[in-house]
């Protein structure tokens, strides 16, 4: 009879050790105090300060890097290129392809290089948020590729990916109706935490039992046109809490707007200094 020599199985009454891990860190810091761990306030539009830089990757048509707290993302844009698969679409407008990946070292547990289902979901949401902003009718028969890589995941990854991707598109010279900025919020019963960190996003599931109004929300917003292009929400929230959350996210986007504009101005000046004609 063939014997399985490769696996070492424990005794049949054994249990996994992770059941006995004490989850101290998560429960501790999320009692209803006023200050968050990194010193920001609850219930106020207090986004993390960002560092953005365009034009890092020379091989790509356009690129951008964003750092918000510990969340670090990099995005490159290629195109317009000839469309590879000429199925389904009509040729009068271009196609936008987005791809969002997490580096294996980005999260607390090592991930794999193969795209998982949540990465595919995030890529799709990124595509939906960016598509209304890009003038695709000016690029018939072409495709524009946007690749985002998360180097370190410390919360609100989708929101910063949207911002980073639209900056990279601007750096690449792709015509757009407006910049798309992203902001996310974590709702906890009475108060909200804007631009949550990883622990704030995931650690609250176990805290203070009452399952009312716990959720998170990510909004992608076009500031000059005052339009929302993407909305993603998780959890259970009442209707007015949800609309209040959307408004808060919009305020957060407006706070980011001047920083992004300045970074783009510097990038344009650096790429092409004003000519003395």
């Amino acid at each position: 009879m063939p014997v399985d020599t490769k696996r070492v199985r424990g005794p049949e009454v054994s249990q996994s050790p992770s059941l006995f891990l004490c989850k101290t860190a998560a429960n501790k810091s999320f009692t209803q105090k006023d200050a968050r761990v990194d010193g920001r306030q609850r219930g106020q539009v207090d986004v993390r300060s960002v560092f953005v830089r365009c034009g890092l990757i020379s091989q790509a048509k356009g690129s951008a890097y964003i750092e918000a707290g510990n969340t670090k993302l990099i995005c490159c844009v290629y195109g317009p290129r000839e469309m590879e698969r000429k199925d389904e679409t009509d040729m009068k407008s271009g196609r936008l392809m987005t791809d969002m990946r997490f580096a294996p070292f980005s999260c607390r547990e090592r991930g794999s290089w193969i795209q998982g289902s949540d990465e595919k979901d995030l890529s799709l949401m990124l595509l939906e948020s960016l598509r209304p902003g890009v003038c695709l009718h000016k690029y018939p028969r072409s495709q524009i590729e946007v690749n985002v890589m998360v180097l370190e995941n410390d919360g609100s990854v989708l929101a910063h990916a949207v911002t980073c991707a639209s900056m990279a598109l601007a750096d690449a010279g792709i015509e757009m109706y407006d910049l798309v900025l992203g902001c996310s919020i974590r709702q906890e019963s009475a108060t909200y935490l804007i631009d949550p960190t990883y622990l704030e996003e995931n650690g609250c599931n176990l805290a203070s039992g009452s399952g009312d109004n716990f959720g998170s929300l990510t909004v992608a917003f076009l500031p000059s046109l005052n339009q929302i292009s993407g909305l993603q929400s998780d959890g259970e929230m009442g209707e007015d809490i949800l609309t209040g959350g959307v408004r808060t996210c919009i305020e957060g986007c407006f706070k980011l707007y001047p920083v992004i504009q300045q970074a783009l101005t510097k990038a344009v000046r650096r790429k092409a200094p004003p000519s003395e004609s």
Partner: protein
Amino acid sequence: MSNKMAVIHLESGCQQLVLNWDETQYDFGDRLCSTDDCIPGTGVYLRHGYIYSSLAGYILRKNEGEELPVISVVRETETQLLPDVGAIVTCKVTSINSRFAKVHILYVGSTPLKDRFRGTIRKEDVRATEKDRVETYKSFRPGDIVLAKVISLGDVQSNYLLTTAENELGVVVAHSEAGAQMVPVSWCEMQCPRTHAKEFRKVARVQPEYLLA
């Protein structure tokens, strides 16, 4: 409150640096201008009768002799051109067939493309006269550089459709079977300077001002 980030005025042509996507929300109140003042050029779009920028770059206001100046936003790096219907493109023949020739489009006008687009020249578009008696083998060979015009963007299955059915379009550079660059003899023949053999091509009559002396 003005949202133009930095305004660099130069004397002629007044170039200013503007940051893209001017808002025209009620609080900020800035936009490039209204359609009464300027005509939109490239890199801008129209919305509700106002002109907004769609690129991050420099504003260029040019007075072209019409009543209103043309406003456009440019980036100094080469503007990404896509082959458009009616544009003259420079392409290289990759393969030929009894019905068509496949080409790679290299230049649009005089700007090189970063990525190569593919095009097709059908047998009936090679020349204007005697379209049915064209032989592609006697008009193009793989490796020839051809000037062509885009007639269509093509549909789902096909590539860009090009035509050489004009006097100024056709083969400009070709190499003979011996490997030397050939000299045009007539509109349908080219001669190799080394072996003096003549080969058939559909030759372009390049305007004298485009030839380097």
